[in-house]
């Protein structure tokens, strides 16, 4: 049991930390909410993974990519707001899922199962999280500039399209990792809350990004520990710890 807890904590700290880090970019791009629908969209993939017994992140990932491509195509075609299109696509994803996902397996799909993560899943999560961290670190300044003003970024010779594509792929990966931890319903919170809390207490960029990463990692580990001590699943507890930290951050708001 001790080993299982250690595995869960390791995976949780890495996934939570890098989700917080990416979230700090998504907040500035006003895209934190998009991660929610994208999380919902993973549900058909998770359902397939549960039915045929393979890793849920692996099932989730192609569906996130499919969702992003669909939203992107619809946007070009219709010029509707991206939020509206996202809502259409994700609701369809959820609806399809409940056509064929056995209800007794729904809990894993909806709120995750980090408490049962295997050794190899942990290893892969850590490697992927580290990879995400390095790519994010590399593109961070440029992404901030793009978020502030695409024209300003272009005037610096930054290829906005290229960076946005990399950024979207990173989001897709983080969502796929996140559903393993907190399930399809709660992934948005995993990226949005740490960044929001960090913003409340930071006066400069370095504090904000580092803060988001730490808050993400700490709330994941606390949530997993609380799950160990209680009867409740880890996913919701992780999000609630995040929310609690956010509430505390309001008190210290600068």
């Amino acid at each position, binding site marked *: 049991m001790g080993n299982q807890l250690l595995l869960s904590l390791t995976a949780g700290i890495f996934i939570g930390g890098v989700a917080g880090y990416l979230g700090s970019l998504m907040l500035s791009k006003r895209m934190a909410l998009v991660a929610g629908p994208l999380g919902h969209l993973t549900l058909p993939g998770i359902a397939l993974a549960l039915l045929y017994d393979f890793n849920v992140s692996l099932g989730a990932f192609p569906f996130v990519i499919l969702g992003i491509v669909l939203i992107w195509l619809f946007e070009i075609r219709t010029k509707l707001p991206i939020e509206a299109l996202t809502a259409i696509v994700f609701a369809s994803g959820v609806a399809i899922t409940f056509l064929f996902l056995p209800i007794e397996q729904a809990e894993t799909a909806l709120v995750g199962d980090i408490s049962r993560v295997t050794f190899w899943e942990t290893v892969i999560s850590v490697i992927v999280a580290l990879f995400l961290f390095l790519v994010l670190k590399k593109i961070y*300044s440029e992404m901030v500039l793009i978020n*502030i003003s695409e024209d300003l970024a272009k005037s610096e010779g930054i290829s906005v399209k290229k960076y946005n594509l990399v950024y979207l792929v990173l989001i897709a990966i983080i969502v796929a990792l996140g559903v393993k931890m907190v399930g399809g319903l709660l992934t948005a919170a995993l990226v949005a809350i740490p960044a929001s809390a960090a913003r409340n207490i930071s006066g*400069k*960029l370095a504090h*904000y990004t580092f803060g988001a990463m730490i808050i993400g990692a700490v709330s994941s580990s606390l949530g997993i520990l609380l799950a160990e001590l209680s009867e409740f699943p880890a996913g919701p507890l992780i999000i609630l710890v995040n929310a609690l930290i956010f509430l505390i951050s309001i008190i210290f708001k600068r």
Partner: protein
Amino acid sequence: MENDFILKVENLWVRLDNQNIIENLSFQVKKGDVVTILGPNGAGKTVLLKALLGFLPYKGEIKWKSGIKIGYVPQRLPFIKDIPLSVNDFFKLKKSSEKETKEILDSVGFKEDFLKKKIGDLSSGQFQRILIAWALIRNPQVLLFDEPTTGIDISGEETVYNLLARLKQERDLTMLLITHDLSVVYKFSTDVICLNKHLICYGPPQEVLTLESLRELFGEEVKYYQHKHY
């Protein structure tokens, strides 16, 4: 004479969403010129700057002097309140060292303590000065400026145009700027480009800004006021 040219634009056409935004525009900018671009809303002024910067597809010729460095001050920046970004952070996005940032802030009239200020807390006048300073990092020879806010007294005694005039002297800059403000055109510019999709007038403002050209540019209802104090 030929060596002096900074920018040559010939027969420029810009077409966006199946609509001609700029039609057959030609002009030249020489070293040290201050060229203002004057025109009503929707005349293609911002599109022209973006085409000159290479952000937009176009037909015709845009030829910058080779090796020229261009600084760009965009019209307005949304979303900057979303993240806690200090002035120093903002300059770091342009890989400016703290020493370089301090020097450039000083040259637009800010003290060192401004480094720690949050961008979101600045007034629009202060922010505009920060954007000008940002554009000046790495010493560009040309500054493109999209509509400096007119009438804002950016530091009590110095308007944005006084600041630009001073920077032009100190740094030997060539400038292209969009404006609505006729007094700026008269006081500040060596040449004016009157643009409303196509070129309506072009040359030194005292010569080419006539009642007729302004009517053609802004429509019949233009209230022309003679500038006695230039």
